[in-house]
């Protein structure tokens, strides 16, 4: 436990190899880091063909993609803005995954968090910022957690599979938002103007998350997310609760014999997952939109799952992974503008990237195994 080893993590595995047998196995490291990059490249190559078919110049397009995301400070900042909710969602996904629970419900949990945050910040707008902002964050976390707790409870007590319940809870959350934005929470100004746009009243300035870079959307939520990532890492590998949660995920049977209440920890994992997704909703409201509006989730509930995978389901890995995935989204938009291709191309590319990367992970694992075998053989001969 002093050296956490997510089973999935090729990276940390290769690191462990190094710990055991000097000289360091740089090959494994390279494989762990290089292959995903290679996979992305391969996916973009396929994308290049699509671009050609669309009559766009792939070079120009990808120049725009990379430049737009990483070439300018605006791009970098924009990537960080997107990375923030991605990271928060990913953290929740990771916790659930570690307990062997698949959480497809992040979309609904984001909405729950955003709804609660908006309601709370407006209801208690009289409070001073230093009190209002943290309280709102908590409210949103609680709402998201509740949205994850329900499937958790259903799974623990009634054996209702979480994939089914989380999918349904997503739809319910969406309708709940429609309901509230259609009347109870709609911006009075919209009613007055007779435009009836489905968005809440704008939050008072003192309820906003402070800006990190003035005149950009980069807000304190980014720092919060990174701190929480470290916290989740600590929780999973340095606390007894985290240990039990992972034990439940690895072997429910053994966990039961060890006196660990398995259902309780499955429930906990989904509740925490919901809470983190809820936080993603909060920071989007307090940091970016400053109000609740349709499409608040921007699909982060799904892309967060991908970010979690890119981070090898490790909380710390999820930090760079979320940023990379965020910049991919930003760069893709820039590309769309630069060569004026349909935005659907962006989704297509992302899908390809995901498929190639998940695929490459296995190749990496196998290469490492082969190297290990080779080493073993030598030792075997010697021994």
């Amino acid at each position, binding site marked *: 436990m002093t050296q956490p080893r997510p089973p999935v993590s090729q990276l940390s595995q290769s690191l462990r190899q190094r710990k055991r047998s000097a000289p360091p196995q740089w090959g494994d490291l390279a494989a762990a880091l290089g292959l995903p990059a290679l996979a992305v490249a391969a996916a973009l190559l396929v994308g290049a063909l699509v671009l050609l078919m*669309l009559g766009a110049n792939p070079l120009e397009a990808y120049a725009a993609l990379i430049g737009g995301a990483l070439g300018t400070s605006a791009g970098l900042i924009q990537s960080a803005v997107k990375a923030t909710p991605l990271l928060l969602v990913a953290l929740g996904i990771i916790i659930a995954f570690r307990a062997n629970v698949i959480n497809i419900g992040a979309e609904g949990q984001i909405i729950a968090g955003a709804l609660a945050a908006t309601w709370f910040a407006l209801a208690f707008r009289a409070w001073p910022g230093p009190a209002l902002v943290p309280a709102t964050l908590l409210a949103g976390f609680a709402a998201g957690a509740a949205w994850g707790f329900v499937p958790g409870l259903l799974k623990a007590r009634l054996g209702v599979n979480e994939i089914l319940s989380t*999918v*349904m809870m*997503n*739809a319910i959350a969406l309708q709940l938002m429609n*309901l509230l934005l259609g009347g109870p929470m709609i911006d009075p100004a919209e009613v007055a103007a007779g435009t009836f746009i489905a968005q809440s009243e704008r939050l008072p300035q003192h309820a906003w998350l402070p800006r990190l870079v003035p005149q950009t959307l980069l807000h304190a939520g980014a720092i919060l997310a990174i701190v929480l990532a470290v916290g989740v890492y600590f929780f999973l590998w340095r606390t007894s609760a985290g240990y039990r949660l992972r034990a439940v995920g690895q072997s429910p049977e053994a966990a039961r014999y060890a006196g660990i209440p398995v259902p309780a920890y499955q429930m906990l994992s989904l509740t925490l997952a919901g809470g983190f997704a809820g936080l993603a909703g909060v920071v989007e409201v307090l940091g970016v939109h400053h109000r609740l509006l349709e499409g608040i989730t921007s699909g982060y509930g799904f892309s967060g799952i991908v970010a*979690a995978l890119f981070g090898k389901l490790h909380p710390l890995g999820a930090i760079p992974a979320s940023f990379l995935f965020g910049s991919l989204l930003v760069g893709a938009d820039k590309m769309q503008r630069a060569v004026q291709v349909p935005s659907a191309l962006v*989704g297509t590319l992302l899908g390809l990237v995901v498929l190639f990367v998940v695929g490459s*992970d296995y190749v990496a694992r196998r290469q490492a195994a082969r190297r290990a075998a080779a080493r073993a053989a030598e030792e075997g001969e010697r021994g």
Partner: protein
Amino acid sequence: MAELFTLPVLLGIAFSGIRLATPYLYAALGETFAQRSGVLNLGVDGIMLMGAFSAFFVALNTGSLWLGLAAAAVVGLLMGLLMALVSITFKAEQGISGIGLYMFGLGLSSLLFRTTVGTVKTISGFQPVKLPLLGDLPILGDIFFRHSLLVYGAFLAVPLAWFILERTTWGLKIRAVGQQPAAADSLGVNVTAVRYACTGLGGVLAGIAGASLSIALTNLFQENLTSGQGFIAVALVYFGGWRPLGVLGGALLFSFVNAFQLWMQVLVPEMEADIAVMLPYLLTIAALAVAVNRTRQPAALAKPFERGEA
């Protein structure tokens, strides 16, 4: 409320419910095969979208609905095999590769639509076919036996799927591979082949599910036509306890409640529409919660098979 339970209303509900259930049935039955063999495919929605587009595109340009259906099946197969390649051969984390497939299908179907069709067009899809005799039954005839062939197909697929899974040697292999791949492998059953076949079949059915939307039920294609129905379909597989009959029950429950809530909006105006719309989702969860649910999922579900382990 009372007027909700008059005969014409109930007939209307049944009629709409049966239509709504069709795509769910195809997709969920396909996913049942995949999951029974141990593959969790969350990308069903993406496959449905590709199927829906291909069917629409081919039908639009050739004028042949059957060619369109065939195209949907073939494209669905390819998408299914792509999923198989990533999850079986490359042993990817299935919960995630499925999401990737979904993104890919959603993006590509929209992209192709934009570049080849451009704007929303309608076609005349599969027309209702009155079944001889049955179609003339007083009331039942109108509800049950005046649908398009794709609707009948979905309901015929249920007993067929049951027969294959429970009564044939293929089904035996599928069940064994999903439950205890090592055992099947030790008897010379090709685990990989069985899983590829089931994931491929799941793709074909998902493709047809999409086609049933675009060339039988709505007769058009637009971006994200399925609006997440593929995910509901996956949920219904769990609801049905991996049994075709259970899936049928789930699909009918969900669809009938959906049809019911539409009528409720019409007949009970004071009822908030947004609440009515929640009903199918709420009731599906509730139904599963109260039903004593003993069925266990296939033991090897979402677990890649590695010879010589454990």
